[in-house]
């Protein structure tokens, strides 16, 4: 930090290039605000600008990804150890997913809300603001930037959840969300301040080194535990891990459906990737001889994961709103994904590579399952005005081309072949079993819990399927816009295709899960950027 403040540092062109996706987002936000002032507040115009901005950001991310894929790491700071921003394979992967998903959500908005939308600029400022926050969140190990990124992702979320200003329920959940968010941000800051006080550094890499040294000598054990616990609480809130999940079902139910779709996938994925990065950095600093010292961390995350998926699945049981049910299901899925993070808490673990890759495969597949499922809920909601399970009654007759993709997505969420959700779950189980072979019985416990949860989850997903396929109370047929129908059917087809072509998906994830930035060599000259070492 001192170095950063002590000398004027001008970023070079290559740094700006690596930062260009985020800069594009910022530019898009400015345009979204500025252009309507000149050309009028047309929703379609704003949507078009957003689409272009997202496409540009996505294209730039692809270029950046190609550039960093071999060398692994690029920090945007004169000092690699306190690198403010990391541009490595992992952050590029997430940004690709993020921008793709942003485009999908904008497409949903275009279909459902653009006709009646009067505040399009504000909506997209908030949406792109969260996107910017998430993009920063996955690309940093600096604790200050972590806080800023999480807040940047969260604050617009509180507002966007209550975007229907006149809807009292939305206002209520937004307040709930904001209070929860504020408290967990405060707790997280407290944890971070403890860490800063202990090690006088904001770089988590240096903090991790300090923690490793202290753990080895047995100093500061309690305070480290408290600090990390507080720190991870804030992230737990972001991924809605139990017991920080109470905001999630309410917020997801109260928000507009495109917002729910947006939050259900990327906000959790961003939190998970951040957590994975932190845990990875800790484990890398600790080294293989300190497995037992980090065991509480592994167990903590593991227990959190088990709780999250079990509570999520059990709470989903009796829901009458499909949207709310999917909110609980997203909690459960965050739990599955959290399980692989526990693997990374084992220093030098054999399964680390497959764990990261499993998480990335899962996120890529989960994206399409949720997009399809929420897409169908949205299309039904826009027609019937209800997202209750009864609105789905007899859907196979009323709208077969909505019912069939919904079936595909729900069964994929269960993890049933021939849908890609099975592959996602398989790689997670694979990583757990690989680790269970070598390390403590935590991983087999996680394995069994994941498998049992699959069984539990079948039942509530089947409730919707039963309503759609077996029940029929004679409601009128659903007319859905053609573009929406095509989109959800594409999701359904993709879920089958992603099982058949599981190989490319896996390779895609493998490519982005290597050369992660964990702990750079600290002796690099100030002023050079690329000479950091990657720890695979």
């Amino acid at each position, binding site marked *: 930090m001192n170095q950063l403040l002590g000398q004027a540092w001008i970023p070079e062109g290559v740094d700006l290039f690596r930062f260009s996706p985020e800069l594009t987002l910022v530019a898009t936000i400015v345009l979204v605000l500025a252009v309507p002032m000149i050309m009028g507040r047309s929703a379609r115009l704003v949507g078009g600008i957003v689409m272009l901005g997202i496409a540009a950001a996505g294209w730039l991310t692809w270029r950046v990804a190609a550039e960093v894929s071999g060398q692994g790491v690029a920090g945007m700071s004169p000092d690699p150890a306190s690198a403010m921003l990391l541009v490595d394979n992992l952050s590029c992967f997430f940004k690709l997913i993020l921008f793709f998903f942003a485009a999908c959500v904008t497409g949903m908005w275009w279909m459902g809300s653009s006709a009646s939308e009067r505040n399009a600029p504000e909506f997209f400022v908030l949406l792109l603001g969260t996107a910017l926050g998430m993009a920063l969140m996955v690309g940093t190990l600096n604790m200050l930037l972590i806080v800023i990124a999480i807040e940047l992702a969260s604050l617009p979320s509180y507002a966007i959840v209550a975007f229907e200003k006149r809807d009292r329920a939305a206002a209520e959940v937004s307040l709930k969300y904001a209070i929860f968010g504020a408290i967990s941000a405060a707790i997280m800051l407290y944890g971070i301040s403890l860490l800063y006080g202990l090690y006088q550094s904001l770089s988590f890499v240096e903090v991790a080194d300090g923690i490793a040294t202290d753990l080895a000598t047995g100093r500061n054990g309690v305070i480290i535990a408290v600090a990390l616990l507080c720190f991870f609480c804030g992230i737990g809130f972001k991924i809605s891990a139990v017991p920080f999940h109470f905001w999630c079902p309410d917020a997801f139910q109260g928000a507009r459906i495109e917002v729910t779709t947006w939050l259900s996938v990327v906000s959790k994925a961003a939190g998970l990737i951040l957590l994975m990065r932190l845990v990875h950095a800790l484990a890398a600093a600790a080294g293989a001889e300190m497995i037992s010292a980090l065991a509480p961390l592994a167990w903590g995350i593991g227990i959190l994961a088990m709780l999250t998926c079990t509570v999520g699945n059990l709470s989903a049981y009796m829901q009458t709103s499909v949207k709310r049910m999917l909110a609980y299901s997203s909690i459960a899925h965050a739990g599955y994904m959290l399980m692989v993070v526990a693997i990374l808490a084992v220093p030098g673990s054999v399964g680390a590579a497959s764990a990261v890759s499993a998480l990335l495969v899962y996120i890529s597949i989960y994206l399409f399952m949720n997009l399809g499922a929420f897409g169908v809920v949205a299309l039904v909601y826009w027609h019937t005005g209800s997202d209750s399970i009864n609105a789905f009654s007899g859907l196979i007759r009323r709208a077969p081309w909505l019912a069939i993709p919904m079936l595909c997505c729900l069964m994929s969420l269960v993890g049933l072949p*021939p849908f890609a959700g099975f592959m996602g779950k398989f790689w997670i*189980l694979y990583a757990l079993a*690989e680790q269970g072979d070598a390390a403590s019985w935590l991983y087999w416990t996680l394995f069994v819990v994941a*498998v049992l949860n*699959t069984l539990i989850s079948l039942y509530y997903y*089947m409730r919707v399927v*039963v309503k759609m396929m077996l029940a029929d109370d004679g409601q009128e047929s659903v007319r859905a816009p053609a573009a929406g129908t095509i989109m959800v059917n594409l999701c359904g087809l993709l879920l089958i295709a992603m099982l058949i072509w599981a*190989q490319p998906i*896996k390779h895609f994830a493998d490519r982005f899960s290597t050369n992660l930035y964990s702990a750079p060599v600290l002796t690099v000259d100030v002023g050079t950027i690329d000479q950091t070492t990657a720890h695979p």
Partner: protein
Amino acid sequence: MESSLLSWIVFLPSIGAVAIMLLPKALTRVIAVGTTLTTLVVSLLLFRTFLAGGDPAQAESVFGSGYGFLHYVQRIPWITGEGFTIEYFLGVDGLSFPLLILTTLVMFLSCVASWNFSHWKVNKGRKAYFVLFLLLETGMLGVFVALDFFLFYIFWEIMLLPMYFLIGVWGGVRREYAAIKFFLFTLAGSVLMLVALLGMYFYSADAVHQAMASGGVEGIASGYRPDVMITGGTFDLIELATNQAIQDHFGAASTMLMGFRFAPFAFILLFIGFAIKLPAVPFHTWLPDAHVEAPTPISMILAGVLLKMGGYGFLRICYPIFPGGGHDWAFVIAVIGVISILYGALCAMAQTDFKKLVAYSSVSHMGFVLLGISVMNKTGFQGAMFQMIAHGISSPMCFFLVGVIYDRAHHRRINDFGGLWLSMPKYGSWATLGFFASLGLPGLCGFIGEIYVLLGCFEGRSQFGWAVPMAVLAATGVVLTAGYVLWLIQRVYLGKLREEYAGFPDAGIREVFILAPFGVLAIVLGILPKHTLFNFMNGTLDLMVDHIVSMNRHFDLMNQSYAMLGG
């Protein structure tokens, strides 16, 4: 030797399903029947292999030279990574060949049985019904020919959803309950299978890597494929069974999974998974519900094909890969088999619902499969396999016979029938043939399987002291079977004709068309068991038994009994 014939067989029904979706509704039934017929004809092409030498009696040697001698193999790497291989691997041997033909036959005939779809109580969604029907066929055929465990698992699960809807949408009054029960039971079983699947993969990788390290070599020789080296873990079911290094590592007392000895634990997981499907008491409770609620053609498929997957799983996966499990738990398995025989028969005797009686008789008959497998000798295996095929012929026939009368009377209460033979002579005759085949009357197919199983028990008396008492108890089951079948025939077909049934039309051409192949096969298999079945499967089964016995001898020498679950 690469051939895509099996892929065609497996995916022809899927192509038919797509055609049904795209073409007008009027063509649906024709396409469905055409597709299943084509699949049947193409599957009969597999007989070419046996007739190539000109002497059908030599068919036994077609699968001759060793366990894992396969035909029509197709191997394509599917998902590969560093030392990680999942293959699209299909092939037939004497074990899967008869079941494959049985499946295509039963599917064709039950498709014809679905022809009167428009007269069903639930007659909506004709396209959906036939699409699901054909997807189900793809799943079932895939299970019988897939030799990569991962692929096997995928096919195994693909069946679930179509079956769920076929019962749940077009079934009887309690269809939703029956369908979800079927779904949950099977999924629970397959989840156990998944645990074993991953364990098998990782330990085979360990075994191969250890062997490579200790020998200082780049790969170890495959257990059954000449000139092939394996360098990592594998899902190849034949490789897992035949590779000595992998087998040694699986069986070693130090190989632990979740704190249990790996081999016995994996055997138990797989055993429960397949026992649910078989179904064996106490995992059988889904079966009566599913059978009773399912529409007639689906009951035919359930009984004719689906139950065979459990038995196939034992013979393909449990026993060859974990031979010690069968050896050390033979008694438990035999007891479960005998309980299934007796309990199933007693339950069948107590039923007043015609269909439920046939359903429980399936439990009883599949008990023989379990008993035959448990003694682990050639006669026992042959009997078990024959019993599966025989049951695959007689039970769909029985279910169709129930369906025929249900179409006319709209109820299935046994005690309310009487004298049907008088009003429906053709139907009565086929019915008697079908139920006698199921009863195990000498000269019909049911007899051969049961007698071979009993003979196998006697043959195993030197090895297992309990084998003969078990055989005696199982023979009691045969008497019970005769009891409920004869009583059933007496109540339904004999006696005074009730006037409400007097006007029933006799079996029509379509119905006779479905009954005749089953009836003829029941007789032919009963009279010429060697030429129709044993010749095709004995080669593989004998080799498999030899393989299991030699593996067990090997483990005995190393004193690694499976009996101890702990370390």
